């Protein structure tokens, strides 16, 4: 079997490196296969034999992955003395595929909240209007703060084999982001019957009603492809904060915004009147199994 290893160049722009550490935390045999299947030519945190200049001097880059937000200003941020946007354009012109890794690269994310530099934005904000001759598909956004490592691997392997990947209106791979973070959450039954979590720190109840969970409004498959192979925030008890969406970070992320006790936002695409009717009906039934503790304190004490 001939093994062509596509070249990957990973650029770190305005970032916390969380996406790099997410990738390093991927399933280890998947990660090993990734390293065997691709040529990770340059990654500022990982490679030692190549420099950024080597990457710039490449004739062709199969996959240009960008972690972090972009700015056209050099006032607060440069990469090895290069203006970030200049560098990005140089590399982008050589790339067959450009992948924004994480919400900062896709939309500006948390770093775009730094008001002193108004030009902090996502990769597509700067590149979408440029003519990039080598590009085989428009820029792919892998959103998430951080991105799920499996999304990087699935996207790269799919493009390697299939050359093209279906994108949604936010340029995200549709097959990753078609569903909601809500799908597969172990608290779903509580959502169906409108049983809210009584507080943080409990296994019982849904986090949508009080704790601000954005699961039913957030495109992501976190609860189908688990984090670190074992868990998700909502399963553990932390509300989804909608980190894969363009409006992340929002305000008051750990509480549900309500008007006179009624959630202002209802699950994506659901008519509010219909949602409220169902809610009123579901709340009528006090289901003991869903309102009781799953494991009582006494059971621990007696065991």
């Amino acid at each position, binding site marked *: 079997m001939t093994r062509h290893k596509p070249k990957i160049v990973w650029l770190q722009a305005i970032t916390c490196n969380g996406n790099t550490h997410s990738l390093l935390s991927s399933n280890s045999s998947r990660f090993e296969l990734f390293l065997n299947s691709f040529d990770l030519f340059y990654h500022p945190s990982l490679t030692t034999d190549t420099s950024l200049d080597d990457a710039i001097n490449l004739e062709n880059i199969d996959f240009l992955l960008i972690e972090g937000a972009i700015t056209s200003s050099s006032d607060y941020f440069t990469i090895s003395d290069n203006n970030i946007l200049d560098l990005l354009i140089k590399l982008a012109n050589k790339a067959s595929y450009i992948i924004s890794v994480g919400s900062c690269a896709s939309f500006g994310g948390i770093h775009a909240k730094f008001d002193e530099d108004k030009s902090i934005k996502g990769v597509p904000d700067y590149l979408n209007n440029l003519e990039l001759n080598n590009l085989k598909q428009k820029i792919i956004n892998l959103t998430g703060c951080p991105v799920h490592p499996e999304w990087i691997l699935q996207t790269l392997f799919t493009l390697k084999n299939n050359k093209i990947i279906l994108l949604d209106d936010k340029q995200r791979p549709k097959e990753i982001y078609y569903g909601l973070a809500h799908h597969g959450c172990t608290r779903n039954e509580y959502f169906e019957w409108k049983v809210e979590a009584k507080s943080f720190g409990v296994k019982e109840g849904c986090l949508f009603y009080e704790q601000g969970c954005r699961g039913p409004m957030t495109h992501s498959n976190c609860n189908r492809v688990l984090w670190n192979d074992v868990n998700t925030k909502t399963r553990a008890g932390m509300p989804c904060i909608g980190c894969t969406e363009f409006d992340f970070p929002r305000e008051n992320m750990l509480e549900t915004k*309500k*008007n*006179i*006790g*009624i959630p*202002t936002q209802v699950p994506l695409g659901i008519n*509010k*009147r219909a949602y*409220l*009717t169902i809610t*009123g*009906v579901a*709340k*009528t*039934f006090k289901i003991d199994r869903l309102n009781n503790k799953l494991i009582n304190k006494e059971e621990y004490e007696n065991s």
Partner: protein
Amino acid sequence: MSAKEVKKNSIIQNALKLFSTKGFYNTTIPDIAKSMQMSVGNMYNYFASKEELAKYAIKYSTNILAKQLRTINHMDISCKEKIFLFTREYLENVKDSPEVIEYFLRVYLSNREVFAQGCEGFLCVSEFVTEVMILLDEGAEKNELRQQEFFSAFSMVMGCLGGFAFLSGEKVLDKDLLEYSDSVAENIYRALKSDKT
């Protein structure tokens, strides 16, 4: 609407009158059949029991209110205007079809055991409760109403309207019912309105 449904509604309208005047337990299926000039046997083709009829009746009567409030909710007017408009329409109902409200007060609220199975909580009144939710939610979203718990706001609206229907039913009001409409609406609105407006 099918012929059967038209007939069903007609039975409910008659039953509402009987229930609200004679009371639930003092009204029998033969009484209702008689008022409809139907045979008792034929009545059972429409409703399997008096309890079932009672449940249909509460859905029927609150859906009248739900429909009115839904129309108002869809109007492009302020929440205050919606409250005034709905209060007026509600009191017109009380005046023109007192049996609808009387049934709610004297049968539905007073004979909970009849409604315990399949009509508990919001089950039979959910369409109306939803419209009240929409009214309150939109009012708060536009900052016309202040934030508070849903049930305290809900009981403010319903307690006030229900209480007024009661006074009307007891015939203790010295003026025409509709003359009170704006001041009742004003009370509801003031109780709910935002401190900032």
